[in-house]
């Protein structure tokens, strides 16, 4: 019959339209998992799933990447970054700028004096955080960064980039736990090594700087 295909197609559209409501009813009180402010579409959601941004927000997965942030330890007030410059070397858009700090004598010390990320260039690739040996730079989750002026508001300096370690722990819980575990394991290994060394009693084979983080 001519027109059967069209009718069948219309049936599909009809079904699509109805399914949204069916899903709504089936999952009373709410099919938006975990209440209406933390949203995540599960693969078995059939109907149209709409996130009413800005009232509702989607669950942002841990690995989500946006312009990076720098971490500092709120307890000691120290930056984690050592100005080693690896992130500037991997950054594909070359949008990270670091000035290494100097002490009074002009000798460079491992601390950034200035740190810039040009958010108007950053391609959110996450390579900087992937290769930072100190875990000092991490992709941020805060995507609400629209501005009216790009020259003032889009070049993030160190002040704008720094966030406390707790923030990182909050948005990257698994990663943070892994890092902590790795750190603890390392500390343990170090202690054990020190112990065995002491037992052997030979100070000769102690290499300075070997304990530095890698």
């Amino acid at each position: 019959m001519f027109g059967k295909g069209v009718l069948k197609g219309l049936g599909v559209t009809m079904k699509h339209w109805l399914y949204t409501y069916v899903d709504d009813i089936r999952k009373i009180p709410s099919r938006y998992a975990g209440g209406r402010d933390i949203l995540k579409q599960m693969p078995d959601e059939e109907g149209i799933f709409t996130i009413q941004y800005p009232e509702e927000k989607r669950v942002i997965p841990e690995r989500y990447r946006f312009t990076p942030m720098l971490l500092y330890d709120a307890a000691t007030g120290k930056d984690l970054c050592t100005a080693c410059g690896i992130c500037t070397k991997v950054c594909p858009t070359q949008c990270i700028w670091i000035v290494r700090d100097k002490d009074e004598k002009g000798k460079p010390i491992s601390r950034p004096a200035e740190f810039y990320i040009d958010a108007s260039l950053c391609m959110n690739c996450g390579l900087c955080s992937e290769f930072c040996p100190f875990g000092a730079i991490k992709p941020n989750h805060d995507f609400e960064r629209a501005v009216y002026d790009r020259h003032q508001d889009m070049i993030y300096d160190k002040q704008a980039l720094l966030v406390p370690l707790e923030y990182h722990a909050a948005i990257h819980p698994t990663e943070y736990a892994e890092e902590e575990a790795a750190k603890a394991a390392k500390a343990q290994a170090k202690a054990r090594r020190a112990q065995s060394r002491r037992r052997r009693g030979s100070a000769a084979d102690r290499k300075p700087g070997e304990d530095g983080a890698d």
Partner: protein
Amino acid sequence: MDEDRSIEYRQGQIPQELQHNVVITSVDYIYNLIRKTSLWPMMFGLACCAIEMICTAAGRYDLARFGMEVMRPSPRQSDLMIVSGTVTKKMLPQIVRIYNQMAEPRYVIAMGACAISGGPFKDGYNVVSGIDKYIPVDVYVPGCPPTPEALLHGVLKLREKIAKQSITQVSWYRKGSQDAIPVPVLGPDIFDPRRVPEIRKRTLAPRPDDDGSEATEGAQTVEDQSEA
């Protein structure tokens, strides 16, 4: 032009005659309410960011909630141009022309790093380092690509901006505001007709150093820095 506008927004808060105050604010309120809740974006995509723009219009984020679902392919019927993607020099004349064809009030969102400043492709010989060098931009949405939510945040920012405008101050009821922006021309490289005198002066004038090409000047600056 952008600067002028932002000054107006600030001034728009303080009307001169007090007796008009009430009337104008409520007129403003209605005027802005209507404009900001029915922004019609232009159906206009340039690169990867355009796909995220379509995602924003699709079911998950649903641009219709903001009265923006009517994407118009014609610039004459749209109020908002979302520059979504890399602006190349080859495409630039068309973009400026399209912008000129849009009727006031018109707004521009620069979506993504590329539209803002050239982004990852900034060094490219065919890439315009920022669309705001040629047309005024109202809101910049960083990201590469900005997720649909980030774009929506940009739209909300734009609405805030619109809400602050005043009918007595807006530029499009004034004389001269409708002057078209000169369309850039593709010569040996792109050039803006407004800058012709400057280009003439510099390309035709003898250079102080003979081989003063671009490249060496760039390299010099780098050296200067490392010496510093």
